[in-house]
């Protein structure tokens, strides 16, 4: 294992929403250039974890966080005691917007922004200062190709993103997440609103992408994690129950009995 560089390091992360605890004392290391699966039932804090990583938790005004997150050994979140997110600014990293651009985020439900397909994909690069037309054209083409959507939309880049079908919109969302050239791609239950065929296509895309970036795959389809992830973490009720090689998690010989029960479908 020469290549087991750590991309994201989480130390004692805790998040609560107005007193209600969503994550407690989560510590884990996410290796670079791999697909990292996170499984767990609903309400177990998976989405909260992603929000903490890309710091959109700051927009949830009743949230409080504690703990530390490092990305490439750079502090992106640091709070010793439980701190309301409103008082977080200035602690940790300074430019939240450019930090967020290092992370691509795909939400559970497809969100085509109400603008053209081209604008959907070129929106983020333009906001970060790329304005040259030909550069943008290349970038849009590359992102749409990476998201396996290019062939379907190349003739109608000027139609509205919201006019696409659900599966296409989800791939548009992925293209948009790739448009700001992220180092980490987070997918939050990306397949719950799309059909199995599209899901398989996106999964193939992810397999290709992992050589370029770290992928965090949050899913409640345990088999999806099994198919794709190299390592898988099982989060339950805001706690990290188990983190191991995916094969181990699914072998039925996991250390914690809750993991075995969950992956074999006894609960969750």
């Amino acid at each position: 294992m020469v290549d087991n560089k750590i991309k994201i390091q989480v130390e004692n992360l805790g998040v609560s929403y107005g007193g209600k605890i969503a994550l407690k004392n989560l510590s884990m290391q996410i290796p670079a250039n791999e697909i990292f699966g996170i499984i767990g039932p609903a309400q177990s804090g998976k989405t909260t974890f992603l929000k903490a990583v890309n710091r959109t938790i700051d927009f949830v005004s009743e949230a409080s966080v504690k703990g530390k997150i490092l990305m490439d050994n750079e502090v992106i979140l640091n709070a010793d005691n439980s701190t309301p997110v409103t008082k977080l600014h200035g602690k940790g990293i300074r430019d939240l917007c450019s930090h967020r651009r290092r992370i691509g985020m795909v939400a559970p439900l497809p969100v085509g922004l109400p603008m053209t397909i081209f604008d959907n994909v070129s929106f983020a690069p333009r906001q970060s200062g790329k304005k040259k037309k030909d550069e943008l054209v290349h970038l849009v083409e590359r992102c749409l190709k990476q998201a396996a959507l290019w062939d379907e939309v190349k003739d109608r880049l000027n139609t509205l993103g919201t006019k696409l079908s659900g599966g296409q919109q989800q791939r548009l969302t992925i293209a948009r997440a790739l448009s700001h050239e992220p180092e980490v791609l987070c997918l939050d239950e990306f397949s719950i609103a799309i059909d199995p065929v599209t899901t398989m296509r996106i999964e193939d895309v992810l397999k290709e992408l992992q050589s370029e970036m770290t992928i965090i795959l949050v899913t409640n389809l345990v088999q999806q994690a099994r198919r794709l992830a190299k390592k898988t973490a099982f989060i339950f009720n805001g706690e990290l129950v188990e983190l191991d090689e995916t094969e181990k998690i699914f072998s039925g010989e996991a250390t914690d009995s809750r993991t075995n029960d969950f992956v074999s479908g006894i609960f969750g």
Partner: protein
Amino acid sequence: MSDPEQRNASRFTQTNLVRKKLFCEKIAQFVIFLMTMAMVLPLLLIVGYLIYKASPALSLDFLFDLPRRGMRDGGIWPALLGTVYLVVVSLIIAAPIGVLAAVYLNEYAKENWFTRIINLAVINLAGVPSIVHALFGLGAFVLFAGIGRSILAASLTLAVMTLPVIIASTKEALSAVPMAFREACWNMGVSRWKTIRSVVLPNSISGILTGIILQVSRAAGETAPIMFTGAVFYKAIEKGDVFAYGLLDQCMALAMHLFTISTQVPNVDEAIPFATAVVLLGTVLVVNAAAIVLRIIIRTHKKW
């Protein structure tokens, strides 16, 4: 019942229950239709009666001429122009403040006692009677701020009156934009203000405009707020002159003029107040129609 043909036949014969259902359906439809007519009929009657009574006096000259012979003859140009001035100036003041305040309350403000008080104040302010606004305007703008009775003071009073409703309707329009749009932008590292400017506002603009334009008819129709703050009984201006008023001049206004000629001036030809009412009604209808057209235009460009 085992024979399928028989079963199909019985499915299409009317049983008593079906007949009763159909009867109820017809009654319900009739009653609902009647209620709609009950609402439309008086409106048509009023408008028809107004136009009928006003027809001897209505003409283009009536619009553009000055009132003559102690308002017993001539037209209503100063009042029409005054109303337009008041409405436009009050909107220029109220619309930006109202929209931006609503953006703050809906997009930035955190849920705490302070914003709760502001929201409560906005709702209550919308319910304050216009005569109270008038007295406030007289005290605050005319006397305290020393603007004097003028278009500016009257427009400020109208702006204060329309502001809470503009804030409320704008907030409504903003909160109708799905949260997912904002989150998608934030995830891409787009700042809050840029998200509002490039996604939230463009998608709520039709609702915002509707709210604003509906306030135009309210501002045009109110008499009380301008009575103490800037409107006068009579003001001589050039016939048909569009730039007759300055911001610090007093002006005539349609609603006020109607009140004056129908209660304060003896021996007015009956057609003149009716014609004035028709013009006031017409102005409001034109503005409302404009709002509807604008909304349709924007909705056809709406993207989700």
